[in-house]
């Protein structure tokens, strides 16, 4: 069952109800925003639980078991606890910066979903600069981390914020360059058209040897670093920095950072699905099931990384990005350019 048809039907009945067109559009936009927000909030809550379960089973534990079936309600209980907590603002913080940092993190995390196709026809707005828009808007995450690090007036938070800024700026370069071959072959920046360029399974960009798999691996590594996850979790290295940039935050503000982090992880995987794994394309099942399934497989991959690899040192982190990933991604782009020119994959 295609969800897009249901939304189309709802929109049609709204348009036929006699309201002026302006109001119909406004209601449709607000509804689309609320639906995306709701779905992502549920996904983020699910991911928090899943992360705990995956980590537990990798370490031969059970993880949360008490609340609901195998602890599925655990994150809901945690969220309710965090909402109930007192909203503490420490005395010496930079108040406006401290206040706005979690809000910017939260909004930036959700804004990217304007241009991500959840299924056939399931997209808020098919921007013709789609992928570029997503890359641009997610840079606000870095600013929120820097604001949190600076505004908290705490040395651990400051160090965490600085580390994350250095890391994200360094890994943004290979990430963007690894996406370029895909744009080159699809000939478009629109997310929907990129998905449509991968109609058959052999057309998926991950299977276009040799540039596809290389770009995918670079993207996944850089994406792991962008979301500050192990083995690149220096910004919140617990043993050195307590909790990094969010050490002074508690209650709902902390919850906003936490949720934004999981939404960002889902964003990275959703973009990888769209660019490399054919997006919502797949037989038999409805398109949104394929999209969610592929994305969750990638999310599991990132979780698997986190509970398998030890953390890198700062210098190793920078060297790996600038001396290995950046040259590799540029070489990959040149190879892809030659292949495009000599009309490989010209199906």
């Amino acid at each position, binding site marked *: 069952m295609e969800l897009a048809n249901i939304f189309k039907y709802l929109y049609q009945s709204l348009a036929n109800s006699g309201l002026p067109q*302006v109001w119909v559009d406004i209601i449709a936009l607000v509804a689309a925003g609320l639906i995306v927000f709701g779905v992502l909030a549920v996904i983020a809550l699910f991911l928090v639980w899943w992360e705990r379960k995956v980590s537990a089973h990798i370490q031969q534990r059970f993880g949360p078991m008490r609340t609901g079936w195998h602890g599925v309600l655990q994150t809901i209980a945690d969220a309710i606890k965090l909402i109930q907590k007192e909203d503490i603002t420490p005395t010496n913080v*930079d108040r*406006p*910066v401290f206040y706005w940092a979690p809000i910017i993190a939260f909004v930036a995390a959700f804004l990217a979903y304007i241009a991500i196709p959840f299924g056939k026809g399931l997209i808020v707005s098919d*921007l*013709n*600069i789609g992928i*570029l*828009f997503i*890359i*641009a*808007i997610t*840079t*606000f995450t*870095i*600013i929120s981390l*820097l*604001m949190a*690090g*600076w505004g908290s*007036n705490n040395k651990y938070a*400051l160090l965490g*914020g*600085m580390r994350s*800024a*250095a890391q994200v*700026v360094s890994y*943004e370069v290979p990430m963007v360059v690894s996406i370029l071959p895909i744009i080159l072959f699809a000939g478009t*920046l629109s997310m929907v058209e990129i998905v449509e360029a991968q109609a058959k399974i052999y057309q998926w960009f991950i299977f276009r040897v040799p540039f596809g798999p290389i770009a995918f691996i670079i993207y996944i590594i850089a994406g792991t670093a962008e979301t500050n996850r192990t083995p690149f979790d220096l910004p919140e290295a617990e043993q050195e920095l307590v909790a990094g940039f969010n050490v002074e935050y508690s209650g709902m503000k902390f919850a906003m950072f936490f949720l934004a982090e999981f939404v960002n992880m889902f964003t990275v995987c959703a973009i990888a699905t769209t660019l490399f794994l054919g997006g919502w394309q797949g037989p038999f099942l409805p398109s949104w099931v394929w999209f969610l399934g592929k994305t969750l497989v990638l999310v599991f991959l990132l979780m698997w990384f986190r509970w398998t690899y030890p953390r890198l040192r700062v210098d190793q982190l920078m060297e790996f990005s600038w001396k290995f990933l950046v040259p590799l991604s540029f070489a990959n782009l040149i190879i892809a350019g030659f292949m495009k020119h000599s009309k490989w994959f010209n199906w």
Partner: protein
Amino acid sequence: MEVEVSQLVFYLLSFVIIISAIYVVTLRNIFHSALFLILTLFAVAGIYIMLNAEFLAAVQVLIYVGAISILIIFAIMLTSQLANKQIRQSNEQVMIGIFICSGFLLASLGSIANTVWRIVEKPLPENNTLTMGKLLMNEFVLPFEIVSIVLLAALIGAVVLARKEGA
């Protein structure tokens, strides 16, 4: 209706740009100035979107907000003397500054008023990113390459300046 909404958005964006630009040059906390600079640049990207230049808007956010502003904030954070200090942004040359700036303002207002703007009747191209790319790679390939060389020179210059002697 359409025109009114876009005018409203334009005035809103201009208001945000001007107010935050004033904050950038007057606030005494330099970190707050940097944040307002980000807001200014972001609102300018909004103006680009209103002009149907989505590509330019995205690149504006990506380069100015995502890279340059972050480098500025980074520099502020690394300069330990600046932390939470109140800094005067003006000095005794403020009168000369006002004089030069108002002269420049008058000159630019005059040139804007006296220019005959070329208006093309053709509709905008459907995909202006594509058009822009084709123009950059065909008609304007020489200026494009010259800009690349200038940037490369700046890059090498930065490395030479930052490198420690004998290292």
